[in-house]
């Protein structure tokens, strides 16, 4: 592997600039003549916009323009789109209301923009915004998913009667009913998957710069996928054709999914920069982030699992209501359907599954993909069900899981996914050993003598990553293909640039991607740089989300590397007067195997560019590109076990131990993988114990600041005990499965299973706040 190759714990190259404050984020960029945008946002969850009076604001110092939703309509700027078409069980397409970037007529959630002030400085824009008078006529609002589907509920969009976006089904209902009819035992569970606010460290921001002479736009934006942003902005919003729009996503401070989507603010900035003839910058603040970044999760589910007399699962029925908020965000429709229900088989052999998902509009912030996107909801549901079943059937929860594990691969589940490989027993064994599962009973007794309630909770998760085979997702309604592209440029002096369509916003691509090059060529990573995040530099890309950058993005790099190496070997063979088949690459040199004849990479590169002596017919240059479309999803899986204590006096949870045994396939940089798992686990624990984006009955957000929304902090979480049980992914040449979301997918069930074990009561919703736990302990 070499000191910097695949498998090495290489220190992250990018951290030097991040930890010395030299990162370059959108808000750090200042353009000549730049103006600043401040959005005027609805304080109401549902209201008619009757009039907007900007006359006083326009007279204020430094104000360049006040633009409204009606002007967007007049200029024929398109509405925001949802890029994945879902078909309801009755065959009808999903029912969507229009989402204009600023509301000309009706606002449907607190924080929705109705107008924007453009001024010479941020503070002047903010001052003037206070002078814009918006006349609203309040309408009844609804925030709760069950309230929204009741007869007589306030209606959000005329296009979606009953606030229903779709009623979608998957699986075989007849076979599932038959399994339940014959069941020896049926286990039932109602669970809520709490709504979360993503809270990337860097709030969203955008700078739009219109060049009138070239009729060309440049957009700097906090995006996880700048090419997708350009595609969507060009194809649907009537702002600029692709060749007249450059999208740059420079350093981006975290995304967790929330920066996949196209948001109103960057559309408005682009449009406004042309209107005012100057660059327009918008930087969101934390309150805007809480109000307008797409939220995550928010499911209400009833599920039933059927077992035979030997405690084998025979069927699963699920009905989920998914709260989409007030509008359908870019990939929202796919999250509770193809990213959720297709994982409902978990790690288990379940012969028959039937799931129904009802998508619902409410007067809340739109909901879309957030770290894990559908898979945390599926994993939480299945793992809570397994725990509930073990308690009801009075069997050890680890044993119940083990006896139902899938052990033969490939395995076709009843819900589309075909698992390629895995070893679920191995990760369960590793986790049980790491936590000393066998010794738990004694530890529990010991804790009891000290007045503490100790519990242990298992969670065996599986997820589908590396999205995705384009043909497969296309057949399921996706509006895009989910391949990745890469380019390898060997410069004439032998340094290497890798251009990738993946985007790093914290994941460490600038290090891991170099490690592949170091591994193959034997050059130090200091000679390699990773170029990403600019549509003018990188040929194309689908971006980073769904733990796809290594499995898909790095494989595309590998494909391009192979092409480059093949050409370089021809050049080397020609120079060394050897046969191409005898050339091997070692330590940055092209060697004739079994001899001491060699030519260094820089000499090969130089030969490629001087073109003085190339093989006949060969083009000059050493630069290759590739597109890689995966053949299947990848299936990271593992077992998390959590041991904790509950203080019966306060209901407060304290961790004793948390072990994670993951199977991510091949690890490129174990240190970075550990960092990803740590972060994911913290988010999963955050969901289980602390985080909840709450609205009151009128749709007013209750948790729109860090004083109310509880983010996990270092002292809320334990020191994690990580290990890996590896089966290589057969679907890609590097054997990679992906590691970016696992922690967030698997952790919350382990925590809730442990708390409910500790307190001896099974019904407990997330977040398990001390108050909630205390009330559950003391409930009759």
């Amino acid at each position: 592997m070499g000191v910097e190759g695949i498998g090495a714990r290489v220190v992250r190259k990018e951290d030097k600039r991040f930890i010395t404050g030299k990162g370059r984020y959108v808000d750090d960029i200042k353009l000549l003549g730049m103006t600043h945008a401040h959005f005027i946002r609805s304080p109401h969850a549902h209201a008619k916009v009757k009039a907007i009076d900007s006359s006083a604001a326009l007279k204020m110092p430094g104000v360049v323009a006040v633009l409204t939703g009606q002007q967007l309509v007049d200029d024929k700027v398109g509405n925001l789109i949802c890029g994945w078409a879902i078909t309801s069980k009755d065959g009808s397409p999903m029912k969507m209301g229009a989402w204009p970037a600023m509301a000309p007529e009706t606002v449907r959630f607190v924080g929705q923009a109705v107008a924007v002030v453009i001024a010479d400085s941020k503070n002047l824009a903010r001052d003037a915004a206070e002078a814009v008078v918006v006349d609203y006529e309040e309408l009844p609002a609804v925030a709760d998913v069950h309230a929204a589907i009741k007869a007589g509920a306030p209606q959000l969009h005329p296009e979606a009667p009953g606030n229903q976006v779709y009623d979608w089904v998957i699986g075989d209902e007849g076979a599932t009913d038959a399994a339940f009819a014959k069941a020896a035992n049926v286990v039932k569970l109602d669970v809520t998957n709490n709504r979360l606010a993503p809270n990337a460290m860097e709030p969203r921001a955008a700078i739009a710069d219109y060049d009138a002479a070239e009729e060309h736009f440049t957009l700097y934006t906090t995006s996880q996928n700048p090419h997708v942003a350009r595609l969507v902005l060009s194809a649907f919003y009537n702002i600029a054709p692709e060749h007249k729009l450059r999208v740059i996503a420079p350093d981006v401070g975290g995304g967790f999914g929330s920066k996949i989507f196209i948001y109103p603010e960057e559309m408005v900035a682009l449009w406004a920069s042309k209107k005012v003839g100057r660059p327009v910058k918008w930087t969101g603040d934390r309150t805007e982030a809480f109000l307008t970044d797409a939220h995550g999760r928010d499911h209400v589910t009833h599920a039933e699992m059927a077992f035979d007399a030997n405690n084998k699962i025979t069927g699963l029925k699920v009905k989920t209501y998914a709260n989409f908020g007030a509008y359908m965000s870019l990939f929202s429709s796919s999250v509770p359907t193809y990213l959720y229900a297709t994982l409902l088989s978990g790690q288990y052999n379940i012969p028959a599954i039937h799931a129904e998902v009802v998508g619902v509009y409410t007067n809340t912030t739109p909901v879309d993909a957030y770290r894990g996107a559908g898979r945390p909801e599926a994993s939480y549901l299945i793992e809570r069900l397994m725990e509930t079943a073990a308690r009801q059937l009075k069997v050890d929860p680890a044993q119940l899981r083990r006896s139902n594990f899938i052990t033969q691969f490939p395995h076709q589940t009843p819900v589309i996914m075909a698992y390629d490989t895995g070893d679920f027993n191995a990760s369960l064994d590793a986790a049980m050993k790491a936590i000393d599962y066998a010794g738990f009973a004694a530890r529990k007794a010991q804790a009891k003598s000290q007045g503490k309630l100790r519990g242990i909770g298992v969670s065996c998760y599986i997820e589908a990553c590396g999205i995705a085979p384009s043909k497969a997702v296309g057949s399921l309604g996706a509006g895009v293909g989910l391949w990745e592209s890469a380019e390898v440029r060997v410069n004439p002096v032998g340094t290497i640039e890798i251009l990738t369509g993946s985007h790093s916003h914290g994941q460490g691509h600038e290090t891991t991607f170099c490690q592949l090059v170091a591994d193959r060529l034997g050059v130090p990573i200091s000679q390699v740089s990773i170029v990403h995040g600019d549509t003018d530099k990188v040929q194309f890309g689908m971006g980073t989300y769904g733990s796809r950058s290594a499995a898909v993005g790095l494989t595309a790099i590998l494909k391009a590397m192979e092409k480059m190496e093949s050409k370089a070997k021809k050049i080397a063979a020609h120079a060394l007067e050897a046969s191409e088949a005898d050339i091997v690459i070692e330590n940055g040199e092209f060697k004739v195997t079994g001899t001491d004849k060699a030519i260094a990479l820089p000499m090969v590169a130089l030969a490629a560019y001087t073109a003085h002596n190339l093989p006949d017919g060969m083009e000059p240059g050493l630069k290759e590109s590739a597109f890689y479309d995966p053949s299947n999803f990848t299936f990271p899986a593992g077992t998390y076990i959590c041991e904790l204590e509950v203080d019966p006096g306060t209901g407060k949870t304290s961790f004793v131990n948390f072990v994670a045994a993951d199977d991510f396939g091949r690890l490129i940089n174990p240190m970075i993988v550990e960092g990803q798992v740590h972060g994911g686990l913290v988010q999963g624990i955050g969901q289980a114990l602390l985080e909840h984006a709450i609205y009151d009955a009128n749709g007013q957000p209750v948790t729109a600041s860090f004083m109310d929304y509880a983010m996990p902090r270092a002292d809320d979480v334990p020191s994690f005990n990580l290990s890996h049980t590896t089966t290589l992914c057969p679907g890609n040449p590097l054997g990679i499965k992906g590691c970016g979301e696992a922690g967030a997918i698997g952790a919350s069930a382990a925590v809730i299973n442990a708390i409910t074990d500790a307190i001896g009561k099974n019904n407990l919703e997330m977040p398990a706040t001390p108050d909630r736990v205390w009330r559950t302990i003391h409930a009759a």
Partner: protein
Amino acid sequence: MYQTTYHRASSVDEAASLFGKASEAKFLAGGQTLLPVMKQRLASPSDVVDLSKIKELIGVEASGDTLTIKAATPHYDVATSDTAKKAIPALAYLASLIGDPAVRYRGTIGGSIANNDPAADYPAALLALGATVKTNKRSIPAQDFFKGLFTTALEDGEIITAVSFPVPAKAGYSKMRHPASRFALTAVFVAQTKSGEVCVAATGASQSGVMRVGAIEAALKANWSPSALDSISIPASGLLADIHGSAEYRANLVKVMAQRAVTAAG
């Protein structure tokens, strides 16, 4: 419209005079409350008079049976002060639980009690220890100083200069932190004076701010031990309720935190 003029005072008298000359002035100490409020544009003073660099307002001193903390002393200094830890360890411990390190480095006792947040820590200590608030005009006993949510006995332009605490025989503090803000979801300070009086104050619990808990005081006076409170039940009426804690939960916490504070006090 949100312009403000910043003044750095070098003495209490100068601060008072700067305040008097301005149309709508505010004193600034650690800025941990005032600045966020100004950033949100919920306050827009014409002038800000900074007290935090006034030497005579900073320091922790003990003399005889009194511990004095000057008004602009940051929480961190109190938490780490050997003098405070020796005289009233529970008070130093309380300071160590305020917010997070950034808040403790800047936030001050004067700012905290002038603000009188219903979930702030210091007010519980002042009330339970029978402290005296010293201002540039007078001395105010703690029980007369706190007047309900965000309200105190301070007059406009009056500057807190110090808080003096009689050193108790025993004292203890126990806090259940608000999971998001880290203020007190409910916290209780218990103290026993050298003459045997018991005083118990709870913060974060009541809708009208920091409060004494008579039932617990009586029980502890009869028997200074956690088990003395076993049969006590605190009524939930009048207590705060929010997404992080129902009134019933806070009622429970008043008792449980008091028991733990007694254990800590020894």
